[in-house]
């Protein structure tokens, strides 16, 4: 899902480019390598801007439109950078019936952004996700790798304050 509020200019480093080239050289000949390459590329850069997609295209000989097609098909691939703190709220069924919709609205209200966007200072990005598998803790949200469970909307300001 694209972040609509801002575009950050691409600032890849030489090291990142070398890391990417190394990955491509390793994986190039395995069948169906495009997705693993793109996943590694996203690990290296944090997202897949057109510059990175072009590099993959040049190195593998895969047409750019094909890479773009794959990048936009899967929700895991991001064309815009994420915030420093990636918030994802589970809107899977188990969390939804326990009120995760209200948690999501509360975050939208406090951060002033909606699904797939990030705050102008690049600090928080907000996404909904489908089931992190911690249904016993519903409703659940994650900030980077930290899981917060059994939430009520009033918990949100206190949790966000930890990241300010």
């Amino acid at each position, binding site marked *: 899902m694209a972040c609509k509020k801002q575009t950050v200019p691409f600032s890849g480093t030489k090291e990142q480019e070398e890391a990417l080239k190394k990955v491509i050289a390793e994986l190039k000949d395995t069948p*169906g390598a495009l997705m693993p390459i793109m996943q590694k590329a996203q690990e290296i850069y944090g997202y897949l801007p057109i510059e990175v997609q072009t590099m993959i295209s040049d190195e593998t000989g895969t047409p750019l439109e094909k890479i773009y097609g*794959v990048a936009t098909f*899967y929700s895991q691939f991001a064309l815009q950078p994420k915030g420093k703190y990636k918030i994802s709220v589970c809107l899977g069924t*188990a969390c939804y019936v326990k009120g995760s919709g209200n948690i999501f*609205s509360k975050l939208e209200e406090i951060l002033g952004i909606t699904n797939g966007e990030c705050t102008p200072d690049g600090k928080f990005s907000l996404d909904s996700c*489908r089931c992190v598998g*911690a249904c*016993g803790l*519903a409703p659940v949200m994650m900030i980077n790798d930290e899981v917060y469970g059994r939430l009520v909307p009033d918990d949100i300001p206190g949790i966000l304050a930890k990241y300010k």
Partner: protein
Amino acid sequence: MYRSHVLVCGGTGCTSSGSPQIIEKLNEEIIKQGLQDEVAVIQTGCHGLCALGPIMIVYPDASFYSMVKVEDIPEIVSEHLLKGRVVTRLLYKETVTAAGVRALIDTDFYKKQHRVALRNCGVINPEVIDEYIGTGGYEALGKVLTEMTPDEVIQVLLDSGLRGRGGGGFPTGLKWKLAKQNDGDQKYVCCNADEGDPGAFMDRSVLEGDPHVVLEAMAIAGYAIGANQGYIYVRAEYPIAVERLQIAIKQAREYNLLGKDIFGTGFDFDIDLRLGAGAFVCGEETALMTSIEGKRGEPRPRPPFPAQKGLFGKPTILNNVETYANIPQIILNGPEWFASMGTEKSKGTKVFALGGKIHNTGLVEIPMGTTLREVIEEIGGGIPDGKKFKAAQTGGPSGGCIPAEHFDIPIDYDNLISIGSMMGSGGLIVMDEDDCMVDIAKFFLEFTVEESCGKCTPCRVGTRRMLEILTKITKGQATMEDLDKLEELCYYIKDNSLCGLGQTAPNPVLSTLRYFRDEYEAHIKEKRCPAGVCKALLSYVIDRDKCRGCTLCARTCPAGAIIGTVKNPHVIDPDKCVKCGACMEKCRFGAIYKK
């Protein structure tokens, strides 16, 4: 030799609630007490009772500690592990009876369960292959390679009656037979671990708790159909499962249980992982294979079926994780053993992920034919807060809602379809009187609209039109003609979509229309949401007689919609009210209600 083993759950649920910190503290305290040569701490897979995590079991006496906190660890170590005095206060209270501590398997949650696919979950350390081998692991592969022909293997599966656990329920043996019959220089065995159905997490638990069982079963499949390469397509959202699979594959290669010339029989088989990238449609078999090929995961028309032309155009079989988890046991115990469990057409057991408005959220494995009542009331412990059961949703976005009138129906593939739902991968979400069925149908349609891959028109456009009508209904703007249109659209999409995702997308609407039509009509005719969920149809009102004029609600209201002076009854201005419900939550006198 250790005199005591402490098993701590390392599944995703318990990890999220802090089990890694528990393990760290345990090891620290054990060293402090000098018990490191007597007590071993082992990180296991999921025990199923996720609602009570983090979970910890102390053997040999099998004391079951639930919701363990780091602060409790010093006491458990010094009292229980050092002095042998169980800390009863911290035990799962179902195991504490007047007569003393009873075994976990005698509690309501475990009593009716029968663990086949989850056999090793919560029992062994999934990161150590020797523990898997110690519980009979890879014995089935050895038996198959040295004593059985491929046809015999397939016959055993056919006789067992095992059907695909991913949702469709296609007989596994038949799938293998078809793939074997097709000649090809190269064939593939795939495992579908792209568990996209929200609320279902049994496949993840198997991968996290017992990854080798999947590898072993895939190797058996490879031998049966004549393939030597396998792929596991696993969700990238399951980092723990991915890591344990990687460890398992590495260890299996070291032991030569994967690779060349397995057991010296000349049979070669290897497995690679492919990570999904967050597309629900990739759970559909042809889409999954397209995705492994590195393309947009769009489904292909069938025929040709994967058994003829699958991955990279070669004959392929694809089974789900839970299906594979049953196979080594079937080989070792025989098809009759497996067929002795379950109902006439659905054999064996099924794992369900209980979630929603139920006490014991978590994973349960029950013989097919267990009734919904047994699952929800006995195993699940019923509905919290004394609320009334309204419906159970099975099958995720492809399934339907089962109302109370079918509470006593034995759960199996065919019964669920006959009442308008489906088994799906086994998510079972319980809903109570506070859930609006129109809202739930809309929730699932939002999911389908977002996840539709866009290849075929009925699904891409049709589901969007359905969502628009449902949104109109929840806003009180729909007419009865809209309801007819909605129903017509359902059947059209069902009949004309390309893949399973589209064909089943209308199920949540059809099943709620079938059992809860009165709720739809209340939204349309009376502009009322009986469950009090649909915000556009609600208004919040303050009861003048109960209000003490404490002003708390007025201070809480984010919209400034509550007017009143101290010690006098307040009123809500309906034009300003944003219906967030914050006032009702805050009121100490129960004076605010929804209408």
